[in-house]
């Protein structure tokens, strides 16, 4: 009986200490074991849908100009890749132009990319070099639009930060293959509540800030959290591109042939 009482008192003491420690530093305790890569993986898993489709409207504000791009985007996951089809509805001179990408989970494997040019009724394979170029004259590069595998970067958790009222992990992503991307590193603020980024800073050589992406209007649609609005600002602040998603649908059955290059057409 004495032995049991001693065990009970000892266990109770340890339990109280553990509870006190948990309550005093609960957030850190709950996620303290997460590495930067773990957080990136959690971010990747937020969208656990098998397919999605939406309309993206982008407005580029530059000096006195305002350029508008409207795209229909469809995306589907396969066992070894993610396939994405972008069809331009605006501006008028590229209406009907389509980009098809097969991004492989094995990041050492080159993505397959095609463009369909309606005026010439021509489907043409394009290569990775184009990924670094501006996406339709916007502040986004093509590589910012397409999926990037977690292991294409090394991840470091720099700490936590409260950003506009939301507690965030502050991550730094450094590319494994520097030659394949415009960016020497990215600093990313990932919200702790939904594991989605709310801010990304893109850095070039010598640590120069190139542009900043703010994400927001977080919504839960069909059980999937996502940011419906983005704003990319150039480092000089003279050029801003906003991106807004509408008509978002997840897990809509999409025919496999939609993502075949032979099937690209008007």
């Amino acid at each position, binding site marked *: 009986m004495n032995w049991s009482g001693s065990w009970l008192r000892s266990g109770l003491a340890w339990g109280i200490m553990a509870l006190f420690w948990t309550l005093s530093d609960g957030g850190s305790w709950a996620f303290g074991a997460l590495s930067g890569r773990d957080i990136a993986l*959690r971010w990747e*898993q937020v969208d*656990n849908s*098998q*397919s999605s489709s939406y309309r993206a409207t982008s407005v580029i504000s530059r000096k006195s100009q305002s*350029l*508008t791009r409207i795209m229909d985007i469809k995306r589907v*996951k396969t066992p070894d890749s993610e*396939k994405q089809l972008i069809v331009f509805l605006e501006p*008028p*001179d590229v209406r009907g132009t389509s980009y098809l990408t097969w991004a492989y989970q094995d990041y050492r*494997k*080159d993505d*397959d*990319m095609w463009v369909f040019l309606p005026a*010439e*009724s*021509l489907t*043409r*394979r*394009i*290569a*990775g*070099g*184009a990924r*670094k*170029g501006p996406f339709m*004259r*916007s502040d986004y590069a093509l590589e910012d639009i397409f999926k990037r595998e977690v292991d294409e970067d090394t991840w470091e958790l720099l700490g936590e930060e409260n950003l*506009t*009222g*939301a507690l965030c992990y502050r991550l730094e992503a450094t590319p494994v293959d520097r030659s394949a991307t415009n960016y020497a590193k990215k600093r990313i603020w990932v919200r702790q*509540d*939904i*594991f989605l980024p*709310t801010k990304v800073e893109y850095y070039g050589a010598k640590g120069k800030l190139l542009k900043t992406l703010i*994400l*927001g*209007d*977080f*919504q*839960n*649609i069909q*059980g999937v*959290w996502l940011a419906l609005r*983005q*704003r990319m600002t150039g480092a000089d602040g003279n050029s801003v591109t906003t991106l807004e998603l*509408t*008509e*978002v649908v997840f897990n809509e*059955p*999409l*025919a*496999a*042939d939609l*993502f*075949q290059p*032979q*099937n690209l*057409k008007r």
Partner: protein
Amino acid sequence: MRLAALWVLVVVLGLGALWPTPSAAAQNQASSLPGDPFAANADQAGSALPAAPLTPDLAAPASLPGDPLASPVAPSPAESDSYFDLSGGGYLESRNRLGTHGQGPVALTQEAFLEMTAKRAAWSLYGSLKGTFEGAAHYWPGQRQAGRAALHELFLTFDSPTLDFWLGRKTHHWGTSDGYNPLDLINPLDPRDPIASGRLLNRVPQWQIGALVTLGWFNLEAIALPRTGVMVPPEPGSPWVPGSYRELRQARAQGWLALERRPVPARWLKDGEYGLRLSTVLAGWDLSLMAYRGYWDEPLFRMSLGPSGFQAVGDYARFRAYGLAWAKGLGAGTFRGEVAVKPDCPIQSPRDWERARLTQVALGWDRDFEGRFYLNLQGFAEFQTQTAFTPREDRQGLTYEARAQWALAAWAAGARGQAYLTGEGALTEIFLEWSYNDHWKFSGGTLIFSGSKEGALGQYGANDCLYLTARFSF
């Protein structure tokens, strides 16, 4: 005829695949197509990480605290489709080419282009009209028709997971190479305005019927032009009349040659053109095998001496083509090529037309340098066997484009062109392009034809020009 029969077989097979038999319906429900994410085991993919905090939560709040771009209103659901999904647009373009040899304008083309698409479920209808006024026609001797408005494309498309089908007048491009396209056989050149750029040709849409059947990882495409699609020679006076036609027409005008051109073969189906293409993407390679049976685009002339003097009779000749095309992404570049064999290719000799085996090879590489520079190089070669009146001929050449762009691609400048290394001449274009906004685009530059006047490109040496183009898209 064998090719035509095979074509019919493909269409029948495709329609058969589409017919909803009970077993096919069951297979469709099981989503047995490769790459279909909704296959029976699809739910295994994309499962959440252990302890992932984000299980589906339909009762989640519409927005979160600390959201920098929060919307004051909840997101609207996807809009329901109207009966037809209609879209349309077009452009107005002024394309002006001023000759640099004092010969006046090569082109003062004012063009209006209107297009519209109507979609409903798997069906879509596309149509476009093109109206052109050629102001330079007033400067050309003998040219009468300056303005014309015509249907450009009009086709109906049916799109299903196993079968696509189209019917109508359209442009349909085959092959992967740039500027030199030995397998791009469906649409003939536009005789009024054949040169789109230093290494791009204008082609004319053709009436056709086609089907694309998906067979696992392969796609089989069948295409038929019920009536032949060939090039009618440019009207007299046009700057794009080939040198050989010009000589024949001059001889006729001088009265020592009777020139006759047989009508374009126009018997339905019997004078049709047929093609098959089997294509796939295999380990990053785009591969396609092609077979084609049709008419050579240009008329060929047979010379004879009759009781009333010399006579030249132009006619259109059949030929076959078989080929392989490929493209492969290699790092930041793309490697592409085509091999075409035309075993009974019609060729024009001085007195008659004959047949020879023509083998054509194109090997190209292009690379985009971080969106700032673009380089495209392609070499090509032709090997033509000996005939009764023509010795064996080999020709080689290259096409190229070097482009720089800046100000987030609003400006671009560079050079592009094609050049034969065996005496057929060269075409060089130096260009500057400016996209002012979403609607206005301007371009200017020069087109320079060089080489022998007997050569395929050198014969247009009188068309060297400076050009200025303005386009308003809407």
